[in-house]
Structure formats: structure tokens, C-alpha cells
């Protein structure tokens, strides 16, 4: 939109034209990402996680889904609906939820994958959205409450931006997202992944 042509959506509602609060709903995918605190408790999600772990069935399912553009799209849309509702998922296609206390770091306005920035308010507020709690603070609390604080020490590699819009479940089952992170142990952890997540499909 060219400045001065049309007022933004917020302005048409009577709000300020350009603010740090784009869109409406908590889970809307608009402008800057906004921190989302998931409603389901982390312990429940840690319990559910093994049910999604790769096995022969899931690998076959992934292969079947990838065999047809239509099937894949429907599945990815369903994944997006569910995960956006719960986590504010933006479909980066390389899900790190199991090691971030099931709080999605891609809802951080800076999309930090390696922990909170230095701008967290003394009350725990996000520096960009002061009315919201820093998603990394939420992640730390949820991980700590479940004895998973060591997860936060993992070094998260840069994401593959070709993965946006892909099903991270399919990428998980096919093993394509192996190497999203590494332990910081040893003198020189490798930043490069063995293979890219994937090209566009």
C-alpha cells in the first residue's frame, strides 16, 4: 500500500494507521510476528510428542502425501490450522517446538531461534509488543517446569527459508529436518546442515 492512498485496516476501524499491532486475532499471520503463549500445558504436549515420532507408518504416510500435490496441500493446510490455533504457527516448515517448551520462537518479532533478546522488559514483556509476554520467557518457564531446561542450550542452526509453507510433520517423518540444532559441546560445533530442509514443492 502506498502511504497516503488508503488508510490501513486499523485506521478504518478508528485506530492508529501504522502501529506495532497489526491485524486482530492473536493467531493472525500479519506484519511482524507476535508472541503467542500456547494454552495446552507443556507436559501434555511432551506426552503427545512420542505419538508423532517417525516410524514406518509415518514414513509411508509422508511418502504418500508427497506423491500428490493435492494431498500434500490438504495435509499442510490442516497442520497449519491446528498449529496456528495452538501455537501461532507461521509454517516455517522446520519445527523446533519439542525443544522450546512448546512455545514457538517464530512468533518472536525477531524470530530468534536461540533464546530471548536483550530487550525483554523487567516485567517479562516483549519489547516490540509490551502487552505480551516474551515468548522465550514462556519457553524457558515451560521447559524448566518439565525438567527440559537443557533443551535451551542447544545451538539452533539458521533456518532454510525455502521451507516456509511446508509441512514440518512431513519434514520430520522423512528425516529432512534432522540437524535443525546441535549440542554446543566440543570445540567447534558445525553450523552447516548435512542437507537442506528441501526445495519448494
Amino acid at each position, binding site marked *: 500500500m502506498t*502511504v497516503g492512498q488508503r488508510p490501513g485496516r486499523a485506521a478504518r476501524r478508528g485506530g492508529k494507521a*501504522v502501529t*506495532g499491532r497489526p491485524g486482530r486475532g492473536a493467531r493472525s499471520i500479519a506484519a*511482524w510476528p507476535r508472541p503467542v503463549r500456547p494454552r495446552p500445558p507443556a507436559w501434555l504436549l511432551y506426552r503427545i510428542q512420542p505419538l508423532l515420532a517417525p516410524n514406518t507408518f509415518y514414513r509411508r504416510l509422508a511418502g504418500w502425501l508427497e506423491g500428490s500435490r493435492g494431498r500434500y496441500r490438504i495435509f499442510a493446510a490442516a497442520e497449519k490450522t491446528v498449529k496456528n490455533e495452538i501455537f501461532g504457527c507461521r509454517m516455517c516448515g522446520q519445527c523446533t517446538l519439542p525443544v522450546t517448551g512448546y512455545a514457538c520462537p517464530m512468533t518472536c*518479532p*525477531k*524470530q*530468534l*531461534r*536461540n*533464546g*530471548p*533478546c*536483550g*530487550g*525483554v*522488559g*523487567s*516485567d*517479562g514483556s516483549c*519489547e*516490540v509488543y509490551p502487552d505480551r509476554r*516474551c515468548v*522465550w*520467557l514462556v519457553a*524457558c*518457564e515451560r521447559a524448566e517446569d518439565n525438567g527440559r531446561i537443557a533443551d*535451551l*542450550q542447544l*545451538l*539452533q*542452526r*539458521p533456518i532454510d*527459508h525455502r521451507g516456509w509453507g511446508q509441512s514440518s510433520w512431513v519434514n520430520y517423518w522423512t528425516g529432512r529436518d534432522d540437524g535443525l540444532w546441535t549440542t*554446543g*559441546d566440543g570445540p*567447534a*560445533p*558445525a*553450523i*552447516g546442515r548435512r542437507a537442506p530442509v528441501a526445495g519448494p514443492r
Partner: protein
Amino acid sequence: MTSAPSSLRSSLESARATVTAEVGPPRGADPAAVRRKVEPLRGWVAAVNIPDGQSAHVRMSNWAGSLLALDAGVEPVMQVTCRDRNRIALQSDLMSAAALGIPNVVLMTGDHPRFGDHPDAKPVFDLDGVQLVWTARTMRDEGRLLSGRQLDPPPSWLIGAVENPFAPPVRFRAARLGKKVAAGADFVQTQFVFDVPVFTRWMADVRDLGLQQRCKILAGVGPVRSLRALEFMSNNIPGLWIPDEIGRRLRGVPADRVADEGLAMCAEIIQQILRIPGVSGVHVMAPGFEHGIPEVLARAGLARAATDRPGQAEPATAGAARSARAAGTAGTGGGSGHAH
């Protein structure tokens, strides 16, 4: 190849306290503006940080400011943020900095554009601060880019990071520095320290993790010279924590003595910090008051280095040669390579 001798490196390796200072680049095209700020610091500091669009405001760029500082006879620390550049531009700039003889870099995520003079800008954040440190370490030590392609020859800068010991989750902050150390940080500069007890506890966590053995710790300090500055800093710098005690002391003196009290408090904080085991030195940030940094340091008992008097520091001919080179670089690279 840049095996540039780094005075910051040798200072950090020595037993004495290391001092670095921040020099804000100008908003304008006057190269002398950097020289004017840098020259009074010669001999007082091991290196000056040149920010990368500090607080998300448009300023003379980090590499240009760094070259001008080099030209003025003070070693630069080029700050690089992830706010405005993707991984291609970041690696190119880092490589270029090495080629131009910039011996130190400090790498960070950076402030969100929301706080700057262009809140309508597109935030990039392709990498985060930890990943940028990791990238730089890979470029230097393995001679490889993120793509895996070889760098010939590899750069040799000293790699710095930043940390805020005061932002929640405070208990996780030392561990977060641990991630940056694992990624390859040689030194770290912290956010302003006004609350020495909290900083002391953070340093205890740092020592528990043994981080100070692998990564030199420089504590951020700076004078608060007016009640207006106090209010501005409290309200406008993300993640800054100023305890009430500072305000009480500033309000407790006559108006004409507030600035002096601010300097005195800063000097006291420096002295307290330097007594904490594991601290290698201080990083002084005094935006708009760079010329006053020597006074703060003198009050804190940090003497000017005897070996580095003005006139000896930078022979005129070498300076002129650098000038010419810097001017040439700015002419060719300024327009295309670094569009903000």
C-alpha cells in the same frame, strides 16, 4: 590476508583492565565528525565500538565509521546487527571488514526497527545473534561460508558478542552467554550496569559455567548526566534496568551538580565492577559525551596508557595513506554495497 595486530586482543590478554568505548557515528556526511569523537579517546581505550545504526536509527554505517576511527589512530570494533541484512550481506560485510583491516567485530541481533527513526522498515532478522557469532567463527576458523564455500584467505577478527545480564529470564542469562561462547565469542560487552549486585550474581553464574576462561567479559558502563537523560534511558532503551538508587542520588544534589554526580557514580560503578573476579574490563557508553569519557576513566583510576601518546600513535604519512584508501573505498562501495 588480515593478520591485523589487534590492540584489543593484546589488552584482553594482559592482566590490566581493558577499556573500550562506544563512538556514535554521525547523521551526516562529515568524516571529521568521527575523528572529533575518536581523537580524545586515543590512549585511553584499547578500541572504540562503531555501532551499526544504533537504536535502529540511520547513521553513518558501521564499516565507514570503523575506517574513519582507524584513520584517527584508534582501533575499531565494528558492530554488526542482524536487523538490516540477510546472511549474504552479513557475510559479505564481515569479509569486507577483514579485508579493510578492521580487526574486531561485535555481533548481535540488534534492536527492532520499531524503536528507530524508520519504524516502517522491513525487519530482516534472517540470522539471530548466536547464529551470526557462529557464522563468523566458521568463516574465521574453518575458512568457510554458511554455504560451505571456501574463503581464501579467511578473516582473522576477534569476535565479540553482547549480553544483557538484567533482562528476564535473569537465571538463564549466563547460560545464554554460554551459547554465544559455544558459538565462538572471544569477548562479550554487556548492557549498561547500574545494578552492581545483580551484575555480581550474573558474574557468579558466569564463573560457575567457566565462561570467563573462554570469553573475556567487558561490563557496559556509562554516566547519567541529567535527570532528563535518566528518564530517557529508563523509558527508551529496551532492556535497560536502572535501580531507584541512581535517581535518588541524582535528585539529592543541586541541579548544577547533577552531571558531576553522574560522573562520580559511573566511576564508582567501574571501580566496583573491576573488583569482581572474572571481569576483564569495561565498555563505556556515553552517547554525545564521548569527549568526557577520559574524565570518567581518570576518576575511576584507569590511567591513560603511557605507551600511546598522541603524535606517536599514528604517523602522519600512514594516516594519509589510510585516508586515501578509505576515501576510495567509500566512493566505490558506499552506493551499492551498503544500501540501507
